[in-house]
């Protein structure tokens, strides 16, 4: 162990491991400090990676040199492509992972990487002098100097677990919370607030009756997250589905006052989209039942995660309620559901590079910034890691636009939106989602992987070659002529109307009802053997949505106009004529980088943006 590092990363969760690994990959000396090395990249909640909008983040992480996609593939025990029959924006991959395997795979990668040290210790404070951070204070190893520090402490800051009326200071069930770091940062001018999240109970598999439940298995053809992988690595196992009923709901409704949340003991705000079961009963009181997914926690455990039954009810009520569900009548609770409340730093305090405004060389990533979810955390960890390296090298930060990546949307939202509950990635949050698909992260981000050296040369070449092939295909399609009789046979097979003349593959793929899959099934494209399914699908998208993508690009151009009007960080909004006091305060707080970003700040109206524009114009700045 050295006494001086380039980067010190606090926390070994999904944000921390990405930050540490990319830092080391980019050639810096990195130290990862974790309270418990056995919990590296622990999946604290559900045993799955991806899903709607989140899988977009994983794909972006993969192209930008991150580990999450690879780790999910390596530990995947069920691969499911969601919404294949729906539009391209909502296609997503979800991988059920063996939690232990996920954690140990990540740990092995970190441990075997050069330039990367791990210690088990607790950070009580930072070394901050004149607004510059230059290291951390630890309990065992004392002061450790580093040129940059990245805080990825997740839900552990001043964390309290609530189970009914019971309160336990703990960052994850059975693990201690970090009691001092957030106070230390408050003393250094940071604002903290409370957030709440929760996790459902884990039930012993042997106590459940799966007969009569819906079985959800892996896809027939497995398409992994990472472009590096072609298949799954572990034995595949299914999930099961069952439903709550009116009896369940009435038990919960009768005991609402016993939950920590409803009785007001929890001050933090919980996520709206991943609500606790009592939330669902309370808010959707007319719905007689809710779905529950029973997800295996791993191959070598019998624990099941009860997706949909997150709760802060007392354990005896949880048991009583869950045992009304079909198949769970004799459910044995291995670990109860619980709610956790913790300190986070409202993200107006960080810049788009994830560096804090107050303290130079200090970065924050993950749940400390108010997000929820492994994928959201990992994306931030990766970006913070890259930017810490760039800062050390005296280079401009790497900032992804809202028009380039979900990662860009995520970070911009964190800073500009008034977040009152853990922020989760959603499809609707991205404006240009026809371009930001989960399957084209390479075409969007490869230039950055190359620029910042995030991938190996071999990987870059592979992706480059694949993209070239995709680009050429739409030019080949028009030359694939289909004669009238052949075409009509094809159309009839697919329940479509006959036609009077022949066509070509290009025109055929333009039709919304015809997909590349139907074309391949019918053998209409003889040369298809030269291309992978992935390449063909990408080319189909390019053809099918050509017109729409063009129009979306027009909107992106308009969007960029206001993005390109820069607002220097030393702008004094209180001096702006005609700007309302509250608006000026909000702008001074966030210090937007552009007029476009200013307009996205919660509480800034379009009229305020006009005022900013008029002021800039009056000052001759635009």
């Amino acid at each position, binding site marked *: 162990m050295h006494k001086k590092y380039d980067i010190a990363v606090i926390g070994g969760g999904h944000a921390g491991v990405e930050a540490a690994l990319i830092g080391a990959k980019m050639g810096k000396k990195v130290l990862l400090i974790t309270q418990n090395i056995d919990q590296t990249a622990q999946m604290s909640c559900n045993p799955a990676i991806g*899903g*709607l*909008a989140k899988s977009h983040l994983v794909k972006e992480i993969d192209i930008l040199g991150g580990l999450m996609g690879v780790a999910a593939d390596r530990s995947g025990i069920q691969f499911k492509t*969601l*919404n294949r029959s*729906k*539009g*391209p*924006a*909502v296609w*997503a991959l979800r991988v059920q992972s063996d939690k232990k395997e996920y954690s140990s795979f990540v740990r092995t990668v970190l441990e075997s990487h050069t330039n990367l040290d791990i210690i088990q210790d607790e950070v009580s404070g930072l070394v901050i002098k004149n607004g510059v951070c230059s290291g951390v204070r630890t309990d065992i190893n004392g002061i450790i100097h580093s040129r940059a520090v990245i805080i990825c402490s997740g839900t552990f800051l001043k964390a309290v677990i609530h189970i009914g009326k019971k309160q336990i200071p703990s960052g994850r069930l059975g693990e201690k919370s970090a009691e001092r770091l957030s106070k230390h940062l408050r003393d250094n001018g940071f604002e903290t607030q409370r957030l709440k999240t929760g996790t459902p109970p884990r039930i012993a598999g042997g106590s459940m009756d799966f007969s009569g439940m819906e079985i959800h298995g892996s896809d027939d053809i497995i398409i992994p997250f990472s472009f590096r992988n072609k298949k799954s690595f572990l034995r595949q196992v299914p999930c099961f589905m069952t439903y709550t009923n009116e009896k369940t709901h009435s038990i919960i409704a009768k005991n609402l006052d016993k939950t920590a949340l409803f009785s007001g003991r929890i001050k933090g705000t919980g996520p709206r*989209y991943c609500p606790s079961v009592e939330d669902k009963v309370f808010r959707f009181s007319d719905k007689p039942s809710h*779905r529950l997914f029973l997800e295996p926690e791993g191959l070598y455990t019998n624990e099941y995660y009860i997706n949909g039954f997150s709760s802060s009810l007392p354990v005896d009520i949880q048991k009583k309620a869950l045992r009304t569900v079909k198949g769970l009548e004799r459910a044995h609770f291995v670990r109860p559901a619980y709610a956790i409340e913790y300190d986070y730093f409202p993200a107006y305090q960080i810049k788009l590079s994830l560096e804090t405004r107050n303290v130079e060389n200090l970065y924050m990533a993950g749940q400390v910034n108010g997000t929820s979810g492994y994928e959201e955390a990992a994306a931030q960890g990766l970006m913070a890691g890259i930017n810490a390296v760039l800062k050390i090298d005296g280079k401009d930060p790497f900032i992804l636009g809202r028009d380039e990546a979900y990662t860009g949307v995520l970070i911009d939202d964190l800073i500009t939106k008034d977040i009152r509950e853990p922020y989760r990635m*959603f*499809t*609707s949050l991205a*404006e240009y*989602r*026809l371009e930001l698909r989960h399957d084209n992260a390479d075409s969007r981000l490869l230039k950055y992987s190359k620029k910042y050296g995030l991938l190996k040369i071999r990987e870059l070449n592979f992706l480059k070659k694949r993209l070239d092939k995709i680009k050429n295909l739409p030019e080949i399609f028009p030359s694939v002529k289909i004669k009238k009789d052949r075409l009509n046979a094809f159309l009839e097979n697919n329940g479509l109307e006959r036609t009077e003349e022949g066509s070509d593959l290009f025109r055929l793929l333009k039709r*919304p*009802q015809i997909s590349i899959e139907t074309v391949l099934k019918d053998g209409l494209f003889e040369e298809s053997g030269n291309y992978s399914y992935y390449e063909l699908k990408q080319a189909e998208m390019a053809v099918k*949505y050509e017109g*729409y993508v063009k*129009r*979306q690009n027009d*909107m992106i151009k*308009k969007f960029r*106009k*206001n993005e390109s*009007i820069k607002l220097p960080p030393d702008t004094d909004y209180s001096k702006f*004529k*005609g*700007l*309302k006091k509250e608006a000026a305060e909000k702008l001074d707080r966030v210090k937007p980088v552009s007029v476009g970003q200013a*307009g996205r700040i919660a509480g800034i109206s*379009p*009229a305020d*943006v*006009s*005022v900013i*524009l*008029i002021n800039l*114009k009056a000052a001759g700045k*635009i």
Partner: protein
Amino acid sequence: MIIAALASAPGKAGISVIRLSGTGSAELVRKFLTSKKMGKGFEYNRLYFSPFVNEGEFIDEVTVVFFEEGRSYTGEESAEIFCHGSPIVVKRILEALYEVKEVREAEPGEFTQRRFMNGKIDLVQAEAVIDLINAESDASYTASKEQLEGGLSDELRKINDKLIELISILELELDFADEDLEFTPKNEIAGKVENALEVIGKFIQGYKTGRIFRDGIRVAIAGEVNVGKSSLMNRLLKSDRVIVTDVAGTTRDTIEEKIEVHGYLLRLFDTAGIRETSDIIESEGIMRSKKILEEADIVLQVIDSTKAENIQEIKAGKIIKVYNKCDLKELPEETSSINVSCKTGQGIDELKDLIVKSVINADLTYKPYYISNLRHLNILKETATQLEQAKVSISESQTNEVVILDLRQALDTLGELTGETTSLDIINNIFGNFCIGK
């Protein structure tokens, strides 16, 4: 910075109004006032009468009112000085004010710009201020007043909200694509798009009437040479504005004049009689006549009732046949023809009535969808095109993200009108059109 400018029309008048706006403007004006009362301080929203004295030199006796912050035209502390309507007095008062370090001359539209910036009005209302100031008739006044009061904005905001609602429904579906939730059927979405289109269509249709409310009815007087077109113009104007001779082709250029009828502005265009001619000036006049005829809301085709045979057809939209010289010979009238005599004035009032009724429908009241601004029209037309595209996408059963793209584009475009979409171009466009002091 305090801004000051003449707020009333320039030139001689009974009274002129000088307006100042900005923190400290009341105290600043008070220093020029020498009446005893002013020495004891002042209250807002009260009229004061006092001499206006600059460095010991008396300039004028003025009435002054001070407005407190938040309760003035601009929303800032303001003062208005009512002086005698002499250009010299105005000039000397303004010079005295501009000498003060904190004061500068207001730029065109700056008072209204400040009003906008202080959140008192939105962009559409700001545009209405221009129209209100330029109003030349009761109808034009009504139209811009309604817009200023937010009538137009309210209606458009409703469409705006409708589109947002639609987009939210579709986006919710995207966000919960893998949940077992029931969503709105596509034909219901299409129906809602159709509704929005209908409302926008109403606005687009209303432009023609709206423009008439604002700009008046364009009435072209046309006909063959020497049938009394200029005499009719003079009769309608009740003056000898246009030279009238017996020589055919006397009127060579187009002459425009305005009259008000039933609160509507009639813009009369006397055109050169159309005939083959070798005279270069006259043929240029004839060219212009043809253009006027194309743009007119209504054409008065003047016909000499004593020579009413073989009249050449005029190519134009609405036409009223005006049989002149009814003192000599009357012709049978139909719905769009009338007998008049420019010599005696017979039938002239009836003709004015007929013009207004032919152009504006029986219901002469103003509707909020009578838009009058070309910018507004173009935005609404573009919005409609994009909504039509959304309908096509739905009918082709395109997926949600595609339909949302159409709707978002429409919403963005409409936002240029409601002020939800802001860009430098729009702001320049609107505030560039003001006169100083407004």
